């Protein structure tokens, strides 16, 4: 039971981090980024390659995250900003296209065979009583919580306030002298860096393959929905909750239901919470 909750929290941390990245991008640029998990792939591959070259794992991970930031910022500048006047559906389709383009470029660059992301902490663990806890589980959960706290703090700083202002009312905030281009660039960069970290934690616990981002993205979106696409803490807690519920369902009801439960949650949640969600969406132009 505790074992299941722990591994639920571990999976939940991946979803939570990705959901937080989705919410940040959504808040700053109003784009539902379907490629949020895939955007973390190039950085993860680069980190694995650097580790195989003999670099210190922590340094390699930092390099990977930096690469993730750059990729996010470049994508924002090249593909997203010119189209910022389009609505949600075109942007959703755009990021779906981006998913395909990114994953296939990764496959072409790094070859498609799965590889293991080995770090000193990705294997081994410790026992408490009759409970075996892998190091990576604890590290993933702690990283998630620490990052969530940092981000909460960040959104209280000037940059965070600017980002929130842009999402509240882009026109007025531009009049007040906020550089909206820079803010959205920052949001995509940070979002991509967080995604890279989430993908690294995920692939260290499992295996790094070109399809390893696919199962995460829908659940991350479910978690973001639980946070109404506006609340970072809601998305984070939602992600953790989904991870735990999934694992407990897998244990009590059956592994086949494990994948379905988050989908059922989101459909039911949208059914129940619809009116309040609609209220939280501003009519854009009538």
């Amino acid at each position: 039971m505790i074992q299941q909750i722990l591994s639920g929290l571990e999976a939940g941390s991946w979803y939570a981090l990705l959901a937080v990245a989705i919410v940040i991008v959504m808040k700053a640029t109003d784009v539902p980024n379907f490629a949020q998990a895939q955007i973390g792939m190039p950085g993860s591959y680069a980190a694995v390659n650097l580790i195989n070259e003999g670099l210190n794992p922590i340094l390699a991970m930092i390099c990977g995250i930096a690469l993730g930031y750059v990729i996010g910022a470049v994508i924002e500048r090249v593909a997203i900003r010119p189209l910022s006047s389009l609505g949600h559906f075109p942007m959703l389709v755009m990021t779906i296209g981006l998913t395909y383009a990114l994953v296939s470029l990764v496959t072409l660059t790094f070859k498609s065979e799965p590889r293991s992301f080995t770090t000193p902490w990705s294997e081994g663990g410790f026992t408490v009583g009759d409970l075996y806890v892998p190091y990576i589980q604890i590290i993933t959960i702690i990283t998630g919580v620490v990052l969530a706290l940092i981000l909460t703090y960040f959104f209280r700083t000037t940059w965070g306030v600017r980002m929130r202002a842009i999402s509240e009312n882009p026109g007025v905030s531009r009049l007040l002298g906020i550089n909206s281009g820079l803010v959205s660039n920052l949001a995509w960069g940070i979002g991509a860096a967080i995604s890279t970290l989430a993908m690294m934690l995920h692939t260290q616990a499992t295996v790094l393959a070109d399809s390893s981002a696919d199962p995460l993205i829908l659940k991350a979106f479910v978690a973001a929905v639980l946070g109404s696409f506006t609340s970072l803490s809601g998305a984070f807690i939602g992600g953790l909750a989904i991870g735990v519920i999934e694992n407990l369902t897998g244990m009590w009801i059956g592994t086949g239901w494990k994948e379905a439960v988050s989908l059922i949650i989101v459909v039911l949640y949208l059914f129940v919470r619809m009116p309040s969600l609609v209220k939280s969406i501003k009519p854009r132009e009538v």
Partner: protein
Amino acid sequence: MSLNTATSLIPDWVSNPKRPVKSSITRYSLLAGMVILPWFLGGYYIYIVSLVLVYTLGTLGMNVMIGWTGQIGLAVAGFFGLGAYATSILHERGLPWILAVVGVGLFAALIGFIDGFPAVRLFGFFLAIASLAFGDLILRVILEADGITGGGGGYSVQLLDFWGFDREIALYYICLLAIVAFMVFVGRVLEGRLGRTMRAVNNIEIAAPSLGIAPPKYKLIAFMFSGSIAALAGSIFAQLLTYLSPDMFKTSLLITMLVMLIVGGVGSLWGSFAGAIFVVFVQEWLQAFAVYQRIVFGVSLMLCIGLLPGGIASIGDKARAKFGKRQQRVTGAE
């Protein structure tokens, strides 16, 4: 401007009833060409053309929903799978195929009603996510009901008996019949009152109730309709492919259909056809290179959104607009 988010992809002439009507000569000669096609093409090519037609049919339903009513429903791959499995299973259990198709079509409309229910009060990408999850749930049910569907192991479809006729050609004619029937039906309906009402729901949702239009009703109709058409396309798809597996109806099928819709042109029935030709051509051309297929699909989606929002269908109109303007200018100079 509208509240809904799909609008910016729809070329003006969809909202404008005075859109240029394709000349009937073009239509009938195209139809005649399609009817005599099997005399000129070999079995494999006929199969490819049938595939194009089935995909067109599946995309048509999504097109009506997104292009006309502006509802971003992304459960279409699930409905495709539902139709493919349900019809094949009923057929195997002894029901005549055509009855099975009709029954499954009605059942899919019911499921589409449930899928569309959140749409009554939800819009934009919340709806997209709800329907995406819904489509995935349909697939989960197929996967879990392995007693009847074979689960992940796949399912061999019981083939239709064509009394000795060539299978590929008979299937081709079934596809052609279905597509012509739907093109005519959908074209008629969408140019009429229902189509205008659907456009009103998309374009002026807030004002629609004061005109006596209940948007929820028309949204639900769009969902039921698109679910039903996708299921019908799925039924024929099963006969074409002869083997089904849940993997075939995953998100990748949804993305393929989105490519057809977007590249072809949202809000254009002929666009869906053009998009299906594009997709099947790329799939066959790059058959052995799935990676390059994905690159082509991904990049074409991005390019279409960025540079050609009306898709292939809008090229002709754009050219005509440009050419027409120049002509006007010339006459003006005289």
